[in-house]
């Protein structure tokens, strides 16, 4: 084939193919709400040192990183350092701008801090180093060394937010002619939402409202219902968001404070007044406080559970099927611990 013939053919093909695939160009957006981690913490290398002597002052430094998408504000993050009092003379928290001692009492081993989550600007998330200076105590008289332990416990309030698109299918029975713009189906999420507690799946159901059907000449209203599957994907423990401080201190904890996540979900719709606005879904079960129902919540069992949220106002059945944004907001507390051992060695006396 000569070049004269080859190039026109190639040119034609390029135009043809590019014409077919016009939608491939998309601006890549950075999604910070991805991942299954909230805060992470680790002891800095060689802190505590593996081997120290009696009476030594030694550092215990914990690096806390917010690898999730939510911010820790208002000094809500708490880090508690448990050590063996019998073999530790003193502990001192080194304060810095973001790290302050626990405000409510003379607790020296607990720090509060703020920590920014991942943002489009700061894609790695905030990082804080919390330092303690400990002074080792004496080893038992006849012992040559003692293995001591420090336990760092981190407690913080956190939030999982999911923005998704769901198909609001107003023609459940597929009676209307024409093609629907979207199809009703379950949505799975494997990548997480930038938090240790993740929504793993949403099952979408459209429930016909019988009462309204009769009153509006056969079309009636459709009540969208969402089964939201929630799972604790992190290594820590989910706690109630109002029990963060208690968990990191000696405070008494009741079992209600464990594994409790408050859930709010929003969907655009038309309210009772006929105004189009973002409506909060009714999520069940609801927390009962003083015999009044408050907020929808989930109590995780074996680290997972689901919540059912419905748009009570419903959607006019006369509308065509459409895609609609769905926002889910979960608030909870989270706690996790790490421990390290070090050896106190007897000094020559």
């Amino acid at each position, binding site marked *: 084939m000569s070049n004269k013939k080859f190039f026109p053919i190639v040119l034609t093909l390029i135009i043809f193919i590019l014409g077919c695939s016009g939608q491939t160009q998309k601006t890549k957006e950075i999604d910070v709400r991805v*991942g299954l981690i909230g805060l992470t913490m680790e002891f800095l290398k060689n802190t505590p040192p593996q081997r120290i002597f009696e009476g030594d002052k030694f550092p215990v430094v914990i690096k806390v990183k917010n690898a999730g998408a939510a911010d820790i504000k208002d000094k809500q993050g708490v880090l*508690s350092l448990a050590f063996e009092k*019998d073999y530790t003379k003193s502990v001192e928290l080194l304060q810095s701008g973001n790290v302050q001692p626990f405000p409510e009492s003379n607790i020296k081993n607990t720090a509060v801090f703020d920590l920014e989550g991942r943002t489009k600007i700061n894609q790695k998330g905030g990082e804080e180093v919390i330092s303690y200076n400990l002074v080792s105590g004496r080893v038992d008289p006849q012992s*040559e060394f003692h293995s001591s332990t420090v336990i760092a416990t981190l407690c913080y309030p956190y939030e999982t937010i999911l923005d998704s698109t769901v198909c609001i299918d107003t023609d459940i029975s597929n009676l209307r002619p024409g093609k629907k713009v979207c*199809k009703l189906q379950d949505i799975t999420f494997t990548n997480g939402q930038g938090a240790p507690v993740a929504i793993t799946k949403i099952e979408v159901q459209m429930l016909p409202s019988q009462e309204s059907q009769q009153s509006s000449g056969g079309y009636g209203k459709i009540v969208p219902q969402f089964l939201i599957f929630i799972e604790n994907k992190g290594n820590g423990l989910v706690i109630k968001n109002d029990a963060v401080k208690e968990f990191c201190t000696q405070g*008494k904890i009741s079992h209600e404070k464990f594994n409790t996540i408050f859930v709010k979900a929003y969907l655009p719709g038309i309210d009772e007044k006929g105004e189009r606005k973002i409506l909060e879904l009714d999520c069940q079960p609801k927390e009962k406080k003083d015999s009044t129902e408050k907020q929808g919540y989930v109590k995780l069992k074996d680290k997972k559970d689901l919540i059912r949220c419905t748009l009570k106002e419903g959607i006019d059945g006369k509308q065509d099927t459409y895609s609609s944004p769905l926002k889910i907001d979960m608030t909870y507390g989270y706690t996790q611990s790490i421990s390290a051992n070090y050896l106190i060695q007897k000094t020559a006396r």
Partner: protein
Amino acid sequence: MARETPEQRRQREEAERLEAERRRIILERERIALARERAEAETTERQRQEAINRAHEEALEENKRIGEQRMSDQSLRGRVGNKIKRAGEAYNAKEDAFVNSAINLTVNTATNRMFWLWFVIIVGGTVYFLWYYGKLKIVFLTFLQILLFLLFGLLIFFGIRIAFKSQDKIERSAAIFIVLAFVVWGIDLLPANIPIIGDYLGPPYAGFKFDLSGLLTTNWAAVITSSYVFIALLFGAFYDLAKKRPILFLINFSLILVINQIFNYYNILGLGRTVNSSYINYIFLGILIIGFFLAFKFRNHFQGTDLAGYPTFLFMNLVFSFFWVNIGWITNVRAFIHVLFILAFGFGYVARNERDNPTFWHMLIPGLLIADFYGYGLLWNSGIDVFRFIPILVLFVLFYCYARAESTYALVSLFFVLGIFLIFTIQSLGVDATSIPFEAKRGADYKDFYTQFKDKVREMIEGRLDIATAGLYRGNVEKNRYESLGVYFGNIRAADPRFYTDEPITVWGTLRSKTYKDAVIVNFSCYRWKDNKKIRADKIIPEIIFPIFTLEEVDTQCTFLPKTESPTPAGANIVTFSAEYNFGTDAYLKTYFIDRERFRASAREGIEPLTQFGIKDKTPAAVFTNGPVEIGLGAGPLVTVSEGYAIKPTISITLTNRKEISDKDKRIITRWEGKIKNITELILLTPPGITLQNTEKCKEPKTDLEKLECPCSMPFESYDIHKCFTSCNKQILEPCNRACEISNPTKNQQQENCINECVTATDKCTEECNFLFQVNEGEGSTKEKYNAYALDVGSKQFRDLNKDIDKSRSFVCRFDPTPAVLDDTPITTRYFRVRTRYNYLLENSVTVNVETVPVGAVNTVPEPLAKTTSEFIQVSGLRFDGLTSELVSAIASVESRFRHCCQDASKNRAGNCVDSGKKECPFEELITSGSSFGIMQIKYNTKESKDWVDSLSRQYCGKDSNGNDININNYECNVKVGIAILKSKYDQFRYGCKATSEYKSQDRVKYKTFIDGCENGVTSSGVRYDSYRDYQAAIRGYNGWGRDSRFDVNYVEKILKAKNNVKGIEIIDPSTLRGITREGEGMADPTPRGGETESPTGTSNPAAPANVRAENLGGSIKVTWEKSPSPEVISFNVIRYTEGVEEYIVCSDVKTEFYCIDSSKLPKGTYTYNVYAYTGTGGLSQSSTQLTIN
């Protein structure tokens, strides 16, 4: 003059013009000719000049060549000259050496040697100073690090050099990529906190975690329909078109259309790329897997066609697409660099080298990408440390480049990298990822790299030092847990391998004590068992109570004296060493405390608190100090705390008698028999906030109900720090001082030192009291104190149980934890402590062998001997001055201890003959030294001696009732012959040895031994042989005049000493008499003239046993020798000697073997083993060897 006409004028002017024209032409010709000549000249000149220049250049070249040649020649001449010079110098040096042996170096060699000498001194000195100041390791490690850096830098430098200079294109490319791989590796190793670029590079990289579920659930539709796949297929299609491969073109083109349709379908669903529809996804993945499987399975069908490499081409693009879609890695700069390098290396080097084999590089490039991204993770999870640090990328590049280019540089680099692995392992960088398949793994940086390096090298160094310094560099402290703290006996052994029933039994032992705590007061005793009853030793060293501080060893001794009323029975006797001493053991138990409500709430949620708090030590065991008693503690491990309790938690304490201590390899290092004699103190210390309630109810409960109100199974009472101080005084200071006073009764420095040690031990005790009760002592102390409770050891309830605790004793207490025990943390770690003091009775036994005494100490001279002697002397006419019955008795005692016939024919030696009481017996039963027989030890082993003895027997002994001659096997006859021989010796030597004809003959061949002894024989006390006269000379002659080992040089003195112990038939001091024994072989040749003759014919001595050796087999001694070359040797005896102990016949009558086993348990000392070879005619020779037992 005529006027010129115009015509003329015109003609003239015309002529002039022509003339001028002619001249101009001539001139022009001349100019041209001149120019030509000049040009020719110039050309000629130039040619000449060029020729000159050329010649000049050639001349220069020639000069240069000549110069070089000259230099070369000069150098050669120089070298030759130097050689000649050096040879000359060497010759001169050699010559000088003859003149002056102190200087044999030439100037040059001296300088070189001086340099190296100084070098060695400086290096050695530096090493020594560094070692002295403890900096050797640091400097050595730093040096190694620098060396490593230099080597690495050098490698990169050479790589760059090869990349620029090499003529070989393949080698050049290989060097470029190897250098780049090293650079990438270097970037991998940069620490995250490196200034400026650290933040940009991010954390260290160890690849990405391989997540199978993430891989399966990734959006495969997105992978297939990615823009990358589209572009790749498009370019593939163009390329195929250009290469005139229409089928491939069509396939690519069709695929583009199909993918486009899939893409549209996905967009219609509105799912985008972040939302998976699992079923569709799995379908896509399934199609992909099946498609590739089929393509690979049938790839041979397409061999040789354009389609052969197509499946792998698709595979490659799908892998790239996977990483294109899951773009999380791109945020990590280091990972991005890896990808760039892999693509460059893959397409720039591998693809070009594998042009003929596209399938290979289609697989290799994505394979390398996958291996680099996930290989680290997989190797990391392997659990094998060395795998965690393999730089896959670098190793792959090195291997491939070496395989393809056979580049030496690649090989050297490979060796370098592999060489590093032999010392340490490395890891590299890590990433943050935003998409699911990229969960970053954290690697290590240069610091880790060098930490690893240093650790490995340090291990090597310290491992050696540990051996060289017996572990002192590391310290001994942590090893103490495997040492036997407490008091123990060691090396208990009998003083002799065998005792006789009438002998004292002495047993030795070493008492070892090791304690870090109180002074140990030891009460040592010793007893032997008889019919299950203890018989205390008669003498004990040390006899008193004595204190031991810290680490001491005391040698002990027990002696049991023979007693008439309770003699030591023959056989195995058990002697037990016993030491009663005070000792203490401390223990602590880690326990976790948590608020009860919190615990219950956690339990209800299925949360295990210890796991939740990341606690690794979930079942802490009690830690106790080493010693004879083990303390076990049980509580928790997690104790819940609340205000009130229905059932209180308990803590149990068990004291167990250990009886053995093992090392870390579970090998028993000390074993003993013992028991806790009684507990003197047991303190339980509970952390602040934990109390034992109602301890006052423990005091003398009257009813069982009251007993139940006591929180413990045994009475405990409240204890405080003041009681602790008092206890220190009572338990340590007072008994210690008392022991000091007992062990050092007089007030002297020793006693003062001892008391000072007691004070030190008490101070230590009070210091420990402070420690036990305090929680923390520093700034901001909460001033919390431990609560303490003491076992009421004097209580009625416990008194009966508090004795001879052979196995264990347990106590249980219920305690009340209050929230005060909790810190301001979710979980609190506290310790229960227990301190005990007790008296321990340690016992170790040893078995001693006691044998029936072969001959006992006798109080009177045996009646037959006394009678025979007195009668015979009277009637025989053999009397001479000095011959008394006492003398004969003394000889009989020293020679045979009055034994004549032995009970056992096989035990007829001095060491084992038990007198049978018979007065006549065969020769086999007669006590013998081998050559001499009977009570008087008459020599009867040569023809000459036999003949003479027989004649004496006939002369003095007469005949029996049967008419047979009575011989020396008859008791009386033996005595009579002995007296007769003594008389003959008297006659022969009464005037001294030098008065004899034998001496006067000076036949030093025939009378070698006699003359030598006569001239040189001296006793241990310095009496000369030649000074003996009369009966003393007779006694000397009875034993012989020799002075070697066959003779007893002190024989005369021994006989005289023995004689002094006999008065009539009375023996004045039986045990002294019994202790006087003869050494050597016994009587010399008794014949009147044969005593000291050398080897008369027929009785020649054999060659001595050769190569005698004694070998300690650990428990027994093996004595070996070589077969005697003398054919007349028929048997061997082995006799053991040691100083101060009677000789012992180890083996007798050994005939066929040439070894003997001495299985006696021998104490430390030096032993001489004599091996005697006997001939059938009485010949004898001996060799010996010595063995020292440490």
